[in-house]
């Protein structure tokens, strides 16, 4: 297997050139938000903050799917693990996220059948191999993940896999950006828009938000050259006071996005209101199974409806996700809340901002 386009986009000479240019055009103090958790990790991993001018502040946004999963949804995952004859299948990041009383990892250690999978298709295979059990997939993702879950459900129908269902806590990106812009106290001078999500949605998906709020927005890839390029474009737009919606990741992202993926997603799912951890309910920001696919809805199949519970006292995940606070300002950070004993999900997920701050700074 040869995965190209790694070294090319980590080239030191090219990077130093971009850094120099950033320093020469940057005059104003700016607060730029990377929406996506993969960007947060990449920014730390490549030491990008350490090469930027002092006036440029990077804020981590609500783009880590695990971090924005509401407490009641985490509780539901834990509850599924406690049901007899249920195999819970999940992405690895969710294993340690604390629900109100337990985590999937702790339930596993107590004997529950919790299995880490890399895609929904692994979950379907597990269901095929365990006909006498029910397999529940924890659906936590954005536009990048939802089409694969939809494809998994279609595959389940085709293969008559009846013992498989999905608990959908899936979410959409553009409504979250709009919600951020409407929140009091949020000061953002530009968005570094998520690359992977945009591959599916296309640049056009952000047009309404951009036009309504006139905010500099640049879609970026995940290599250091990509991110530096996006930051440079955002600074240039701000300095020239000419906000624009730009695509700095054209090798993967088109205007219209991936039509087939969107079609599958919209065939199986429909837009609904969704609870975001720390932010609250955002209208039309979630995806639930359409009526004709409801027999694959784990919440309906098991009658699972967990109550809303307050988030742990002192946990600032919500404010951190909105760029209102940095992890350093959270009273629990590095004290009560560490990757070993996380209180909030931002400290758990490999893409969470608190975990990234803890690990890399």
């Amino acid at each position, binding site marked *: *297997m*040869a*995965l190209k386009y*790694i070294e090319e986009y*980590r*080239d*030191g000479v090219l*990077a*130093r050139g971009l*850094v120099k240019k950033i320093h020469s055009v940057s005059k104003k103090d700016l607060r730029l938000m990377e929406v996506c958790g*993969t960007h947060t*990790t990449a920014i*730390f*991993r*490549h*030491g*990008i*903050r*350490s*090469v930027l001018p002092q006036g440029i502040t990077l804020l981590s946004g609500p783009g880590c799917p695990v971090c924005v999963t509401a407490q009641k949804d985490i509780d539901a995952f834990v509850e599924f693990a406690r049901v007899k004859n249920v195999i819970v299948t999940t992405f*690895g990041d969710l294993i*340690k996220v604390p629900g109100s*009383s*337990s985590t999937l*990892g*702790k*339930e*596993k*250690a*107590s004997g529950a059948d919790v299995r880490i*999978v*890399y895609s929904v298709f*692994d979950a379907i*295979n597990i269901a095929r191999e365990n006909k006498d059990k029910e397999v529940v997939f924890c659906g936590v993702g954005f536009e990048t993940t939802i089409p694969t879950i939809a494809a998994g459900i279609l595959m389940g129908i085709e293969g008559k896999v009846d013992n498989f269902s999905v608990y959908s806590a899936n979410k959409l990106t553009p409504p979250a950006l709009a919600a951020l812009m409407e929140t009091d106290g949020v000061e953002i001078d530009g968005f570094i828009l998520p690359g992977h999500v945009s591959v599916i949605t296309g640049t056009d998906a952000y047009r309404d938000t951009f036009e309504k709020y006139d905010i500099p927005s640049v879609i970026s890839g995940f290599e*250091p*050259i990509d991110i*530096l390029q996006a930051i440079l474009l955002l600074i240039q737009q701000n300095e020239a006071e000419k906000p624009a919606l730009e695509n700095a990741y054209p090798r993967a992202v088109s205007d219209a996005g991936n039509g087939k993926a969107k079609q599958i997603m919209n065939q199986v799912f429909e837009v609904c209101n969704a609870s975001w951890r720390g932010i609250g309910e955002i209208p039309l920001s979630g995806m639930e199974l359409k009526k004709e696919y409801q027999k694959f809805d784990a919440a309906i199949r098991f009658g699972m409806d967990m109550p809303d519970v307050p988030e742990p006292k002192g946990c600032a995940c919500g404010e951190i996700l909105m760029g209102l606070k940095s992890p350093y300002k959270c009273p629990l950070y590095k004290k009560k809340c*560490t*990757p*070993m004993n996380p209180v909030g999900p931002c400290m758990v997920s*490999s*893409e969470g901002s608190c*975990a990234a701050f*803890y*690990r*890399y*700074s």
Partner: protein
Amino acid sequence: MTEEKILLDHGSGGKASHSMFSDMILPLFENFELSKQDDGATLDVEGTTLAFSTDSYVVDPIFFPGGNIGDLAVNGTINDISMCGATPKYISVGLIIEEGLPIKDFKLILETMATAAKKAGVKIVTGDTKVVPKGKADKIFINTSGIGVISPNVNVSGSNAKPGDKIIVSGTIADHGITILSSREGLKFDSDIKTDSAPLNKMVQSIIQSNCDIHVLRDPTRGGLGTTLNEIASQSNVGIKIDEQSLPIRGPVQGICELLGFDPLYVANEGKLIAFVPQKDAQKTLEIIQRDEFGKDAVIIGEVTSEDSGKVFLKTTIGGLRIIDMLTGEQFPRIC
């Protein structure tokens, strides 16, 4: 509230493993030899200095590209003893076998162990077998322990790193962990990646016989290079700075790491060592390692600093700086 239990995290080789050792294990067994926390214990027995080490192997799957649980278990203990600066001599083998393991697989594992021991020049001199009912173990678990002899004047320990030391890694990192991961069910990559499992005793002997002043030897297994460097920085109370550009990583390994979001710095190796050597001897040591069968890709990756004691920094390819912490949480389970 759920009762506190052992989680997979405790076996990751990272922070949870370390706190399990220092909070639960060390206080009960407290003694000078154990508290040094090296890869093996260094013992004075009637005038001879011995290295003694033990390790258990539970890797899943038991067969993987480039090896199996058998040679992994033999090489692993050979390397742990070698990292004490010792010449490994004798090994014991404990086999815990699950009912139903095909005899053909069992024989193949034993043959591989015999070959590995022969290649490294060590003898398997004692052992034990147990068979447990189906489901009470997973195919086969292997424990190996070993004894080696440390020559007079050799003083290698994780607590000996000194400011100015150069840090050498003996080859590409992350091969083993990624091999195991990519041979798991459901993750089939079309690649030629194989484990780096190898005995490093001959390489270590060549280094020691060269009279180069070797401060630290360590094999970055579970937890990867990042975690091992943290252990040494904290054992020796020094800072460490490494250069990302110099880190040797095979393209396909890097590719899979990117795809799955793994940091190669935290992925296990089974046939690599890191050596801390004063600058005056660094080039010579590097050349000796490079001449070894398993050290062709060896490079200098960084150095020890007097500031930022206990911390490891990485200079990134773009010229940025970031901290390398110890692994927290499990990247993926049962790799060795």
